[in-house]
């Protein structure tokens, strides 16, 4: 039971990761693929933040004059890393969507199989 309590966060992360990853590799709609990528990446954020959580901790903003009782803080480093990763994620999304718009203008569709059929024609 302890093991479960200690790890369910990670398993949910695995589940979300699998769903996102599945959408990316299995679906032919280019927008849906980007949405899948978003879920996939967001699940990794959950992994990092879970690593940094400390039970009984609070947000890592130093409280001045806490008196004698030492305050427990959660680990700030994963937060920093994930802030960066979120930004990278939205940058990728923006570029991916721009590409989708251009593909739609060039091919008239955003379904992968229709596009590859058109590409086969000379």
């Amino acid at each position: 039971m302890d093991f479960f309590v200690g790890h369910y966060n990670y398993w949910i992360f695995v589940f979300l990761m699998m769903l996102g990853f599945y959408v990316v590799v299995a679906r032919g709609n280019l927008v849906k693929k980007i949405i899948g990528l978003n879920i996939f990446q967001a699940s990794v954020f959950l992994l990092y933040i879970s690593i940094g959580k400390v039970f009984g901790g609070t947000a890592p903003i130093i409280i001045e004059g806490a008196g004698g009782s030492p305050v427990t803080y959660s680990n700030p480093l994963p937060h920093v890393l994930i802030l960066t990763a979120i930004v990278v994620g939205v940058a990728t999304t923006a570029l991916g969507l721009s590409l989708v718009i251009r593909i739609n203008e060039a091919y008239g569709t955003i379904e992968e199989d229709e596009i590859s059929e058109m590409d086969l024609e000379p």
Partner: protein
Amino acid sequence: MRHHIILRVVAKLSIPFIMLYALYVQFHGDFGPGGGFQAGVIFGAAFILYALIFGLDNALKVAPMNVVTFFISIGLLLYAGVGVAALFYGGQFLDYGVLASDSVSGQHLGILLVELGVGITVAAVMIAIFFTFADRGR
């Protein structure tokens, strides 16, 4: 959406507060949650709201693309510039400690400046991306 009077009034009222809040998030990031990135997104959101309610052409009059692209570069240059300035003051790249007489206030100044750089570029990029997407649609 130009005929929706309620939307126009509410937007006009709330946009200044959104911007003010962005500035609060920007400069209060040292003490509470927030910082340049979040502030930039919120600041950008104010322009996006304006474009949604009053139309892209009006928004482009407020923030022409030339100006937006200018700020995209300025923010990044400010950040990197702080790093280079540290080199000239004899520190390592991005060592803010040398920017002022004592290390802690140097750090404080450096963090303030780079967060400002982050805020400027992020806001400008968000506006630029939305404007180009919207412009493509007409």
